């Protein structure tokens, strides 16, 4: 992330913030889609995270921490989206028809078709906490300590969530693969 852009944005330069938003928004949206599994809510969470970033940027002490701070804002926005309707005040739900986002990306040859289906089935079994830590660690590439900061929980909590999530995913792979006759399919 460009430090000079962050510093300019911190003192109110909207053009600088626009550039930061432009280079960040794709990755933020993709992460929100993976966490929330809902394109409309992912849009809302991404918007909320970036609007909060602009509104509260003056609270950032270290420009080098901008990206980590943005991840934290996104995670909080995702949790808020997911919680809507669960809290006494959080009642409004987005009911616009969702826009389908076309997947322009080609399937990664590293993942065989059968494995993709199995991972998908396992992934939908994860709860929000587990999906979030998986996305932060395996998609955004955060270390567990960085994920802990983004989530606002102790590193030990992140480790236990990741452990539980991986156990569920591995179980899904094992079960959905049927009787395991080929040792190479055992990922656990």
């Amino acid at each position, binding site marked *: 992330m460009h430090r000079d852009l962050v510093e300019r944005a911190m003192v109110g330069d909207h053009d600088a913030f626009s550039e930061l938003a432009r280079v960040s928004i794709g990755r933020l949206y993709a992460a929100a889609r993976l966490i929330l599994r809902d394109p409309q809510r992912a849009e809302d969470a991404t918007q909320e995270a970036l609007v909060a970033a602009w509104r509260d940027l003056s*609270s950032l002490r270290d420009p080098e921490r901008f990206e980590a701070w943005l991840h934290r804002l996104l995670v909080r926005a995702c949790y808020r989206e997911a919680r809507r309707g669960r809290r006494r*005040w959080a009642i*409004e739900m987005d009911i616009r028809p969702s826009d389908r986002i076309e997947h322009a990306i080609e399937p*990664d040859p590293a993942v065989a078709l059968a494995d*993709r289906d199995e991972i998908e089935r396992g992934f939908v079994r994860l709860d929000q906490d587990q999906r979030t830590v998986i996305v932060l660690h395996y998609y955004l590439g955060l270390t567990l300590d960085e994920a802990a900061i983004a989530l606002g929980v102790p590193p030990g909590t992140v480790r236990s969530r990741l452990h539980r999530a991986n156990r569920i995913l591995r179980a899904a792979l094992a079960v959905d693969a049927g009787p395991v006759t080929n040792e190479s399919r055992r990922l656990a």
Partner: protein
Amino acid sequence: MTARDEYDRHLSAWLAAEAPAREPEHLLGEVLARTARTRRRPAWRFAERWIPMSTITSRLSPAAGIPWRPILVAGLLLIALVVGALVVAGSRRQQLAPPFGAAANGQIAYSVNGDLITVDPKTATTRTIVSGPESDSGPVFAGNGSKLAFVRGEDGNRQVWAADADGSNPRKISGPFAKYPGWVEWSPQADIVAVEIDEDAGRIRMARADGSGETVLSTGLTAAINPIFRPSDGNQILFRGQATDGTWGLYLMGRDGSNLQRLALDPGFQSDPTYAQNRDNYFWGGTWSADGRTLLYHTPEADGSSTRGLGFRIHTATIGPNGEVMSDKVLVFDVAHDDEFDAAFVPSMDAITYQSAAGGVFQSWRASLAPGATPVALGPQALDLIGRVPSPDGTSVLLVTGDPATVTHVDLASGASTPFTAGSDVAWQRTAASD
């Protein structure tokens, strides 16, 4: 390559393939349009930027003892005055607020850095009422003002605790739970706390406030959330439930779990053209009038007037003692709003407060129920849901906006707004009238 490496590689590759290649084209434009008109918070608003939060917290702690020189006569007089004041205060403390309807304003509670703080709205005097190494948050006063419930601990070990309203006699009443409870609600008698936990699919915990245990009510539904006691005796509980076929509704049952029934509200809702895709949005926000006869809730309505095509509308329904729906009407205050929702009666019962969303901007309102009355906007607009905490006496409201939260005190008569220092989990104690 180890099995673990192979698993990590598969998972990372799957996530990369599953993630959308790019964001929707309109998203960046919408974000920049919003940020361009969003006022930034000045740095001085973030206290932790200037002062360590530990310093702030310690300032909220009771001050050290005041030095004084004893003079015999004055001292005796002082003691007499103090004893007299304690007797008067003690006698007042015995009086409980009515659990529903108007009451006098008591303390305002919220959490700061894992401790519970109260502030007297008249004198602005703050006091730490629950402190210690544990993380405490989410205070909820009983309707009669005598007790306080709160959540203690972190994810993985969340517990519900109860205490006297001044924070004394804390005791655990429910838990531990993996996550933050979804709902905590006092019975009118302040003897039971209804607790909703994520992992309790279709069940509601009735925790005894003295810490002697809890009863779990199983509804047989897929989900049972947002339980509230029906005024005025609290012998029935209203909650939002989801049947095994996926249909949501508002349900009524006895506080012992008996006579469970789905209220026959909004007839024909399943014929809405977009019902299937919006099924999970139906029947939210149930709240009673003080006499327990009228129910407010909101649910999607295809009224054709919203720019978004479909929005929440507020319903007012008259409910008989056994759950009979005597009437069910839609209240539309401004057809231009995408959504109107989250309604509650003011204590005088002649008006409601609610919030609206139009074009992604949220606004709180007060609306008289007199025909032709025009709603009055309350406090600031927001880009997200607005928390609303009415004063027990019905003259004002605390609005919670943004994250980090900003709390605004709004006088309902004049509409005047003033900033109020409190956390996002603010609660207002009801007390007996002072006369």
